[in-house]
């Protein structure tokens, strides 16, 4: 197909132009699956959901246009605000806590001690599993009377709380649980740490900088691009928390774990308020967009690129 077209055109200039055109065609042929997928599963649905968010639709009858009605209703929906609040608290606490923990583990794994690969495997292990089974296991781990967390607290004479059965402690339980799967961020931090040139540490040490000073003045600045990457990834991830609410608490007790995506799903597939849920989806999109852009915008101030790469 390509060869025939090239041979048919005489003259060097036209020939090279058509060769280039051919290569361009080939590029677009090869990426066509992604382009079709982008239009059919991302861009198209986004536009469609923008329209749906302006309608009342229960899947059975055709959508009925109601203008900004859904958005107005959202403003007066206490559960919407509750879901936004719960998810924001969850993200604001679990993201920095998770990143700090991941960095701490990465620093430990970056020391020269024996058996590192075994520790690395164990620390990363929890991150490969997720889904219903993990939530079921954590329901049992957090069981107020017979769970392992309260048993261990019991050894120290502390009477553990009701965890996922208590409106006060359900959200902290979810945050604790999120610390279990920081392995991905940990590995990325570890790779970042291994890229820190040892000469810089040696130079700082000669200047009399202690361990902490070197960590905060040498390691952390060089690690800022990695921190930025992990920060964005984990914000987006934490905003999407769903399975835990669905399996462990059903959004309760007293809506204490009514996470945003869970409430969105409830509206769409339990109450069949598709238009209303589409409006929530658009708001989620705007939130993620604004947060990401804001993080990138401030990153100019705090991210340091080695060698200006």
């Amino acid at each position, binding site marked *: 197909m390509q060869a025939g077209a090239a041979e048919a055109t005489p003259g060097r200039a036209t020939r090279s132009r058509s060769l280039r055109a051919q290569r361009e065609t080939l590029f677009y042929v090869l990426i066509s699956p992604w382009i079709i997928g982008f239009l059919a599963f991302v861009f198209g649905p986004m536009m469609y959901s923008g329209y749906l968010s302006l309608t009342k639709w229960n899947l059975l009858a055709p959508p009925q246009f109601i203008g900004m009605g859904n958005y107005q209703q959202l403003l007066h929906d206490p559960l919407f605000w509750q879901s936004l609040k719960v998810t924001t608290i969850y993200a604001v606490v679990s993201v920095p806590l998770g990143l700090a923990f991941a960095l701490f583990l990465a620093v430990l794994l970056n020391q020269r001690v024996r058996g590192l690969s075994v520790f690395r495997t164990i620390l990363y292990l929890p991150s490969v599993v997720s889904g219903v089974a993990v939530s079921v296991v954590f329901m049992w*781990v957090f069981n107020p009377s017979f769970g392992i967390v309260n048993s261990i607290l019991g050894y120290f004479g502390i009477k553990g709380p009701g965890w996922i059965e208590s409106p006060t402690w359900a959200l902290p339980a979810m945050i604790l649980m999120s610390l279990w799967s920081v392995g991905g961020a940990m590995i990325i931090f570890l790779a970042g740490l291994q890229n820190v040139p040892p000469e810089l540490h040696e130079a700082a040490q000669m200047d009399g900088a202690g361990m902490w000073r070197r960590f905060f003045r040498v390691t952390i600045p060089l690690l800022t691009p990695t921190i930025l990457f992990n920060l964005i990834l984990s914000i987006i991830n934490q905003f999407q928390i769903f399975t835990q609410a669905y399996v462990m608490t059903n959004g309760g007790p007293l809506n204490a774990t009514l996470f945003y995506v869970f409430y969105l799903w409830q509206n769409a597939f339990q109450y069949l308020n598709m238009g209303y849920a589409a409006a929530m989806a658009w708001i*989620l999109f705007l939130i993620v967009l604004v947060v990401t852009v804001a993080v990138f915008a401030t990153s100019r101030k705090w991210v340091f690129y080695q060698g200006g790469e």
Partner: protein
Amino acid sequence: MQTRADVAMKAVTYVLLIICSAGMLLPLLWMVSSALKPNYEVFQFPPQWIPSPVQWSNFPRALNFVPFLQFFWNTILIAVGSLVGSLISNIMVGYAFARLEARGKNVLFYVMLSTLMLPYAVTMIPQYAIFSQLHWVNTFWPLIVPAYFGNPFFIFLLRQFFLGIPRELEDAAAIDGAGVFTTIWRIILPLSWPAIIVVCIFQIQATWNDLLGPLLYLNKESLFTLQLGLQYFVGQYTGGWNLLMAASTVILIPVLVMFYFGQRLFIKGIIVGGVKG
């Protein structure tokens, strides 16, 4: 020579590593321990770590309570179906982004990367609407077909890997008159198996752990995946935790085994996907 401070640092590092590893393993050990206990022992306080007697029969009992074999088979079908699509599409697109030049390539590349940040919940409702118009609800298609249209994370990962392969090999093949698909098949693929295995592992893992997709599209018990099946089991079963833990153990084991054998590649994949951007 080691100073006393160095030795102390090492000791502290060990202690911290051991405490953290123990904490990470705790839920999994607790799961296995509970899965092997007789029911009366599950509700014992303080809890026993080593079950006595060890009750292996929990496993067959849990697996027979709901048709887990059927759920397992369904999950395998979806995993294999989407894996094939994922490999074909992501290798093609990744190769194009790595090697071919065209106007608009950079813009498209950034558009593709930005879709990495799009939560599934945002496109979930219109996608459902589209698939239900196609009468694909209660079939595996909505869970398989999207994999044939590329995944930005995998495309990026493969592109990064392809960029590291020396171009001369492909040039030689081109002189011999090889087309692009022949080049990919004969030259690129044999050199990129580590990256391809990484994509396989991540793709299978994603299918295995997915709850939201199957929850939307599969409402018949005979079509359930393992994740839905376990949730269904939780809803149906009102007995002790030992059988629930047995079922959870069985569902987690394949992924853990896959991780154990592929861990180097697994970790490499995260680093390539994460840092070299």
